[in-house]
């Protein structure tokens, strides 16, 4: 479930990166690569788990699935927070500088 949620987050971030120039300026590519990196790593985890559990891997218990979904959503939230902090620190449009020093942003 965590893998699935992260893959969907990676797909959404990549689609936005492809379609939107303003989003590319806001480093959405970084967010997309972060989610793809985590997805690939969880894919390896899933393969190792499948090798151990075989068909039981596809029929997890409901509480485990709920916990994994909760983890997946938390991971996406953490990824978004990391991305937002990076955007605010790098400030590609000069919005933070404009707000702090009263200058005009490059929007």
């Amino acid at each position, binding site marked *: 479930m965590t893998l699935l949620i992260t893959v969907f987050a990676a797909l959404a971030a990549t689609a936005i990166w492809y379609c939107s120039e303003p989003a590319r300026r806001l480093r959405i590519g970084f967010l997309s690569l972060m989610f793809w990196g985590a997805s690939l790593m969880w894919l*390896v985890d899933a393969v190792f788990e499948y090798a151990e559990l075989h068909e039981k891997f596809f029929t997890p218990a409901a509480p485990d699935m709920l916990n994994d979904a909760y983890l997946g959503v938390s991971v996406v939230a*953490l990824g978004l927070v990391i991305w937002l902090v990076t955007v605010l620190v790098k400030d590609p449009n000069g919005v933070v500088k404009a707000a702090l020093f009263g200058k005009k942003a490059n929007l």
Partner: protein
Amino acid sequence: MACFIVPALEAAAVTVLKKIIEKKEAKAVQVPTPSNGAELAVEKIPFSRKLGWLTNLLWGGSALLAFEHVWHGEVVPWFPFLTAVQEGPEAVSDMLGEMATAGVTMAVLVTVVWFGLVVVSSVFEKRVRHAAEAAK
């Protein structure tokens, strides 16, 4: 248990390599030679930028996986940080085994995917260069 440490170590090594290559590329751009002048340099994606994709994949993935380990209580915010170390030699042996199998596979898979990205971007670069040459 601690499989994210292997890609995180690779990420640290690649970040250092990227910084070194960035410095070399900055020097190379300052003195353009007539044969590989400014026009070609603009069309070619710097290798340090391509390494940046790998560092983003590795650091991002490791950070999110580290969070998962905290979630499952395998990593704690106090010394020695890994609960396997507190549990004894057998747990440490399991942890090292997982790092050697799952951790190394993660690092290799991410690197292979990145290599695929580099190959695809090189194909695009060649196409752009051929199109520019044909237009001349």
